[in-house]
């Protein structure tokens, strides 16, 4: 069994060595298509990171009942800060609220000119751990906060948050659909490239059949060849991702820093690299098996 396996592996290696042009073309096709797929995955991961940062900047605001005396506001803030999801809670007095309103611009300031300093209600702003990534958890917290005595209303930018959630869902769904499409396209391209290589060796296959080789004997060296092409292609795509991460990612991070501070763009991680290599091996072996199988079937029929 092992002797047979070594024999097939040897034949696979020899075929790769004897056809460097075809091998380079096939591994290159696998590598290029996986590189595109890898870039898409990394782009999606970066966009999710971006959405997370946006989510972290959002706050949940609890408005305090006017009936609560100023000395009763701090215990309420402390109680809210004690909630599991809350990172910290900040008390905003009516005077601070008015100052913030005035700071919006001259027309806003003119609007509240001469009104009482306590025209706006006191409020507590809650920063959440992990941001607003989980809408259900935020809604639950809003409900808990609203039920507290002394809280009249809660505002957490429901509409904006829902839009953000929809965007994330779209990105994930789009990623899934695009991933499936890229996988199908890649398998198709790789299978056709490998068919070319199989076709180039049709004489060998015909002679092997003539002398009594079984389909398994004919197919197995091609599977090893596909494995080598897949490993090389997957490895090359991972290497290209790493090179892109080293050379392009820092520049992209700087370019987007003005729009989203704190977002570090990454175009490589070990998990994606591993997936690319495994996908390359799968594509190589599957594409090769499919191509040689089709050829054998044609010859048999």
């Amino acid at each position, binding site marked *: 069994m092992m*002797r*047979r396996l070594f*024999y097939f592996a040897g034949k696979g290696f020899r075929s790769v060595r*004897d056809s460097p042009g075809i091998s380079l073309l096939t591994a290159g096709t696998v590598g290029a298509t996986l590189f595109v797929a890898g870039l898409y995955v990394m782009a999606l991961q970066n966009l999710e990171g971006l959405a997370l940062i946006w989510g972290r900047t959002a706050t949940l605001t609890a408005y305090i009942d006017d009936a609560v005396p100023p000395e009763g506001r701090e215990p309420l803030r402390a109680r809210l800060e004690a909630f599991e999801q809350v990172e910290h809670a900040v008390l905003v007095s009516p005077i601070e609220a008015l100052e913030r309103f005035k700071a919006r611009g001259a027309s806003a300031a003119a609007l509240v000119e001469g009104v009482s300093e306590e025209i706006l209600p006191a409020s507590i702003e809650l920063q959440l751990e992990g941001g607003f990534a989980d809408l259900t958890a935020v809604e639950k917290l809003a409900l808990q906060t609203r039920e507290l005595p002394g809280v009249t209303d809660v505002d957490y930018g429901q509409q904006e948050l829902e839009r953000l959630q929809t965007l994330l869902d779209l990105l994930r769904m789009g990623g899934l659909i695009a991933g499936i499409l890229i996988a199908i396209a890649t398998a198709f391209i790789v299978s056709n490239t490998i068919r070319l290589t199989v076709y180039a060796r049709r*004489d*060998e296959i*015909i*002679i*092997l*059949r*003539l*002398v*009594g*080789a*079984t*389909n398994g*004997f004919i197919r197995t060296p091609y599977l090893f060849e596909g494995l080598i092409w897949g490993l090389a292609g997957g490895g090359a795509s991972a290497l290209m991702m790493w090179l892109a991460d080293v050379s392009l990612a820092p520049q992209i991070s700087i370019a987007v820093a003005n729009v989203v501070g704190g977002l570090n763009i990454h175009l490589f991680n070990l998990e994606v690299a591993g997936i690319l290599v495994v996908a390359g091996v799968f594509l190589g072996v599957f594409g090769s098996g499919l191509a040689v199988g089709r050829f054998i079937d044609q010859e*048999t029929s």
Partner: protein
Amino acid sequence: MIQLFHVYKTFSGDQQALVDITMEIEKGEFVYLAGASGAGKSTLLKLMFCALRPTRGQLLVNGRNVARLGTKAIAYLRRNIGVVFQDFKLLPRLTVEENVAIAREITGAPRRDIRRQTYSILKEVGLAHKLHQLPPRLSGGEQQRVAIARALVNEPQILLADEPTGNLDEERSAEIMGLLEQANNRGTTVVVATHDRNLLESANRRVITLEDGRVAER
């Protein structure tokens, strides 16, 4: 060894290549299939080594009905049938030794045995000194001898040859026919398809003549 009962072979477009062929070739026999080009000789040989299936009728090789054999069984049957073609069908990128060894490798024989048997058969056909040559560097006669070595290395019970001397001069043809005779003397059943009248007249063997896909003379 080979039995045909009312065998027909029709290709697409209702082109009848073989019509109602019934014949028997005994074990150890040396038989010529004669006839003009297009008479059906090659089609008949292809049926015998299962490259084609009969459209109608029964074909038994070594007692087995080839119409009922699956892909794997056909592969195993072919290991018992050596085939030689007019155009040699050698792999140009493999050496003489590798071209012959390929027929042994598929059987899973140990490497040492393969090398020994390959050398032995190449010595028999007079090419032991050209083990590492590539086929394109050999003459037509030498290439055909390599093809015969490949066909015989598994010691098959049947040897089929389709116009084996078609590309060779008289002297080389005689050498090739000598090798086929030797194989027959060792007990191999040999079937040679040819339209070479000189060959047929010089050999004192059974001749089956085909004409328009039918047996015209036995």
